[in-house]
């Protein structure tokens, strides 16, 4: 019994200090996929990733934003992290490197909507302003 205690004492303290201090996930850890709408070719009718997504966490929908004039081909690609199983197949599949994995781990949300990032294409010039926001979904 004492031998165990001795071993325990020898082991010392290993406990992480999270959340007080942040740990880093190892390089290349499949924390969460990030879509870069600027590179994505969904607008040009590419659907390589969608075809390869088992849980259909990536899916295309016809974009009908209120604006009358829709630039064809118009679509919007949604990435639902709530469904994603972090397999990484889409990363390799993407012809335009628009998808990456980042080593994040603070992914929990209180509202399922916050797990969805939608890139919607072909819209009127009036909404260009919204492009200023950062696009990897994290809040500044």
């Amino acid at each position, binding site marked *: 019994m004492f031998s165990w205690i001795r071993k325990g004492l020898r082991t010392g303290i290993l406990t992480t200090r999270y959340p007080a201090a942040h740990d880093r996930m190892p390089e290349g850890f499949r924390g969460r996929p990030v879509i870069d709408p600027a590179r994505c070719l969904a607008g040009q009718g590419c659907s390589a990733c969608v075809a*390869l997504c088992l849980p259909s966490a990536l899916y295309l929908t016809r974009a009908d934003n209120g604006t009358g004039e829709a630039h064809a081909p118009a679509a919007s690609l949604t990435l639902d992290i709530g469904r994603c199983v972090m397999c990484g197949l889409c990363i390799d599949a993407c012809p335009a490197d628009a998808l990456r994995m980042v080593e994040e781990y603070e992914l929990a949300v209180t509202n399922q909507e916050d797990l969805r990032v939608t890139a919607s294409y072909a819209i009127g010039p009036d909404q260009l302003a919204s492009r200023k926001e950062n696009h990897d979904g994290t809040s500044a």
Partner: protein
Amino acid sequence: MKEHAGLKQQLTAAYGSLPIKQPHPDELVLAISSESFWPTLNSLRETCEITFVDLFGVDLRSTHDAFQLHLIFSFDAEQTWLHFVIDIDEQTAAFLSLASLFPAAGWYERVIWEELGLLPQNHPLLHRLRLAPDWPEQVYPAREGFTWKEPITAHEPIQFALEAAPVGVVDYPLGPVRSGIVESGHYTLRTVGEELIDISVQPFYKQRGIEQRAEEVSLELVPLLAERISGTSAFAHSLAFCQAYERAAELDVPPRARFLRTLLAELERLYNHLGFQADLCQATGLSVGQAQFDLWKEQVLRLNARLSGHRYLFGLNIPGGLSRDLTESGQEEIHTLISALRKELPALSRQLLASSSHRDRLERTGVLSPQQAREYCAVGPVGRASGRDRDLRRDHPYAAYAQMDFTVPLLQEGDALARAKIVLEEGEQTLRIIEQALAQLPAGAIATPCPAPTPGESALSWAESARGECLHWILMGENGKLRRYRVRSASFANWQAFSLAIPGHNILTDFPVIEQSFGLSFAGANG
């Protein structure tokens, strides 16, 4: 190519002149008629030492207008699989139960009965096994035409009633929602105060229909499903599937990939075995020991994350090889951790077996006699602790195990202590294998592009997961999808044996120890 002269002439002796195909050097496929298979198996059982491995059915009515039973034995003497194929025509849709010859076949036949709708005649007790209680009658998921996607409306639940217990014996219900962080499964413990006299196990609360699901997705996604049959045996399962795929497509994996697969498979075994000890310590209340083993498990998991980007090695196996290569730094990290464990693990196991509070709880607890283990075909560490000298890595080598030098521990006692010892010993062997794999790791590609197998191709494949052997069988269909995907996980084989270890001289407080010492997975059994 091996000839199996001895076996073949034994078989011809048993069956007269039968067409014996040999699609692969280590697999003999025999077609028998539904009339003759029972007596011939009976005679074969007497003549030579064969192990029942799997029994499942395929719905081939659209092409052969018949059902097909696949009955797989292992003939360890010659490292060969005996694969019997029995046609069952649609009218009779029944076959003679094998449960009297091979008791283990009982559950497999029940699965066939409920999922394919073939009746095993004079089966000892036929009631629903895997499907949910509210699953409607006459809906057979394994038949063609069943679509996994579309939901089924619930029907009047079928509750199986155990026969009444003797007066004063309590049906102590345990689960499906049990204490601690465990999977969902139900036990009915029959106890008289302390004494534990009987048990009824219902591990099938988590049927997700992975087999059917796999038949609806494109081939390169199937490994993702295989991984999720049992998350802690993910690599073994995806490996088994990929090997089946490669066998069917008849292509060779580059050597580097084979060695890496061996390496990673052993890493998975390593963290499982460390976790096994931790859980066992938890069951016996040895918290410090639990902490120690959990520490090592966590370190292995973190190593996995650094090597593969995933703590449980998901998404690594792809048909034709691996999706990620092992970097130089990765090799370094493996080396450092393994050499640390080489020093630490023997010390830990010595200390564990020396601490009486732990050992006394394990000795003569939950005994599974070698005879029972043979009848119910216990696999993996459980079987090896009860005198089943059988390990696919050695008996049917795959990946790069043929080049590895390791020993397979074996004990006869069959109690919890024996199981713990086996797992400890296997852990140390695993370290040896990993070192060898690292040392011999060849350079080169990690994957070859592989075309989809031709339709109609079928292949059997296997891997020794941490919990024991898991078998996968695929049948290619048109449009580049699977027509039939069959998975037999280690846990499914062992759950039958588990309930044999309970009656006898165990008391209620032994139960958690016994449960942990079997280290079974509910998810794996469900599929």
